[in-house]
């Protein structure tokens, strides 16, 4: 098992390399020098030459070396190190990611289990219907509906941002405040992301229900609830579990919309505003970061799978 995990771990090195090369190539295509952010309009030509004269592999290596030192170049819009810029917002996005993923599982797991266990029931039909709706509604529509309904009609939740909190607030109050602001964006993600998991869980359970080992378990006299818990759920949750890491990738894509609509001060919004202002050094850094996150996501998936599924473990 460790062998496999270790091997899987080493496998991301070439992937990372390939990805960084791709980003590098993209960066060459972008105007200016997004790798350093040093070339800005109006810069005198000698400086430009000094940077662009090196052959590409030297620049690539320099770029990698800089990044390893924590230097991601300079933002063109903010004229500040990209690392600092991203750092200030990373926390917010991570917070949102955790809340969103947690919430989406909180929604998906019970509904998926219910629909799978009582498939064909009225509840299942309702869940499936809602699921189709959630598949068909683009995430931004979900978010806009939530904003309007919970934010402005019911005035239950704040509709935007994650405020910087004055220290006059107590720990509890500031925690509450944070959760309060996270609620809608996280819900928007959860509502649209849980559909896939609900469906997978549901069909996983329906499939597992018909497996022979379930018959074996029943023939052993295992009570029905335990049959579900020990046999069906564990097997049915395998695809969902193994996609856990992919949900991180999914979150990355969705977070752009969510942060955009909720003006959430995270890196997704930074990404969009950098795209608008063509702040390519930020874009390059964020792309790399997202790529790394996605890689780690799949890595996590594989590791989790290796841990939970003995069949994969030996392979």
């Amino acid at each position, binding site marked *: 098992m460790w062998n496999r995990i270790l091997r899987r771990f080493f496998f991301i090195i070439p992937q990372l390399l390939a990805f960084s090369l791709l980003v590098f190539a993209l960066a060459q295509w972008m105007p200016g020098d997004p790798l350093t952010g040093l070339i800005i309009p109006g810069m005198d030509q000698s400086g430009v030459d000094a940077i662009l004269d090196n052959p590409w592999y030297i620049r690539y290596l320099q770029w990698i070396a800089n990044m390893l030192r924590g230097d991601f170049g300079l933002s063109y819009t903010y004229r500040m190190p990209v690392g600092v810029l991203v750092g200030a917002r990373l926390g917010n996005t991570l917070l949102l990611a955790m809340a969103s993923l947690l919430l989406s599982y909180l929604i998906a797991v019970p509904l998926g289990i219910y629909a799978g266990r009582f498939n064909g029931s009225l509840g299942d039909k309702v869940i499936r219907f809602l699921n189709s709706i959630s598949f068909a509604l683009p995430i931004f529509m979900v978010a806009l509906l939530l904003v309007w309904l919970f934010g402005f009609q019911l005035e239950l939740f704040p509709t935007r941002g994650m405020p910087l909190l004055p220290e006059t607030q107590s720990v509890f109050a500031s925690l509450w405040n944070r959760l309060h602001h996270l609620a809608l964006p996280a819900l928007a993600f959860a509502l649209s992301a849980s559909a896939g998991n609900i469906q997978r869980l549901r069909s996983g359970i329906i499939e597992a229900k018909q497996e022979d*080992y379930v018959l074996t378990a029943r023939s052993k006299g*295992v009570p029905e609830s335990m049959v579900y818990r020990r046999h069906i759920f564990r*097997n049915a949750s395998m695809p969902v579990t193994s996609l856990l890491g992919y949900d991180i990738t999914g979150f990355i894509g969705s977070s752009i919309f969510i942060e955009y609509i909720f003006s959430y001060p995270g890196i997704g919004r930074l990404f969009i505003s950098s795209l608008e202002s063509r702040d390519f050094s930020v874009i390059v850094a964020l792309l790399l970061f997202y790529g790394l996150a996605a890689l780690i996501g799949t890595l996590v998936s594989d590791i989790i799978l290796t841990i939970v599924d003995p069949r994969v473990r030996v392979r």
Partner: protein
Amino acid sequence: MGLGRPLLEINALHTAFRMQDNYYDAVDDVSFSLEKNEILAIVGESGCGKSTLATTIVGLHNKANTRISGEIIYQNLNLIDLNETLYNRIRGNDIGMVFQDPLSALNPLMTVSEQIEEVLLYHTRMTKEERALRVSELLVQVRVEDPEGAAARYPHELSGEARQRVGIAIAVACNPPIIIADEPTTSLDVTVQAQILDLLSEVRDDTGAGIILITHDLGVVAEIADRVAVMYAGQIVETAGVVELFTDPKHPYTRSLLRSMPQANGTLESDSGELYVIQGDVPSLQQLPKQGCRFAGRIPWIPFSTHEQSPKMHEISKGHFVRCTCHESFRFEGESE
């Protein structure tokens, strides 16, 4: 055979599946009994309802789309009337079941010991240590190679033979008086099959359990069974002691089956010619004739009148029952009187 009530008694059992709003009997008017210390073989071709019969006894059918009637009497209880909770006390504890495909019948995510332990968990008050002890005892009993190691493995890490042994260990964990084995050797090699059959008869000898062995292989029946029930299209067409069945089969279906079998043993000369073939095909569940002898269509040269209107089981000698009266006038084609 035994005195008093048999271990398990099945009377007029019907199991019907719902298909497009209609119920079709997959098991149709099946009655038999199982004694202690007896191996009862149920033979029949694919789709004749053997597995359905087994799963009905163990109560594994979803009430929503099956209809079960008749009696399954065990210890004066009609199992059909039991609720899930009570049934769960019986399953595993009083009836153990072995399945055909040992790989898919084991949960791929649980170790062998966990799966065996699970039976003990719900039927005994053993402590954790006692259960662990019992598990290793069982693994030794069913002669799994390297029992210690096997306990900690997952099903896919075992050979097919070892898996089936584990399956048997699960079935016998609580020393149930009844064991139902549904084609336990079909997916195994002959040499392994022999070992597993030996194991089953050993279990019977050790615990005195009654075993219902489901198979489609007459050879297996001849090797191990005490009594045989032959099934055709959901019905039992003949029951007899094993020797009697092989030496004096009565029902045309039984006779045809025996005749169509190529034999490995015996003389070389006998098999130079063609094998006997039963005409026609087994009708599917939905196409079964509602009335009359189900085998009639496959022996068309026999006058229709020789079949019973609604065929019953007739005891033609002690313990030898045959359905329908057509056997009396049945001859193979070209066979002289």
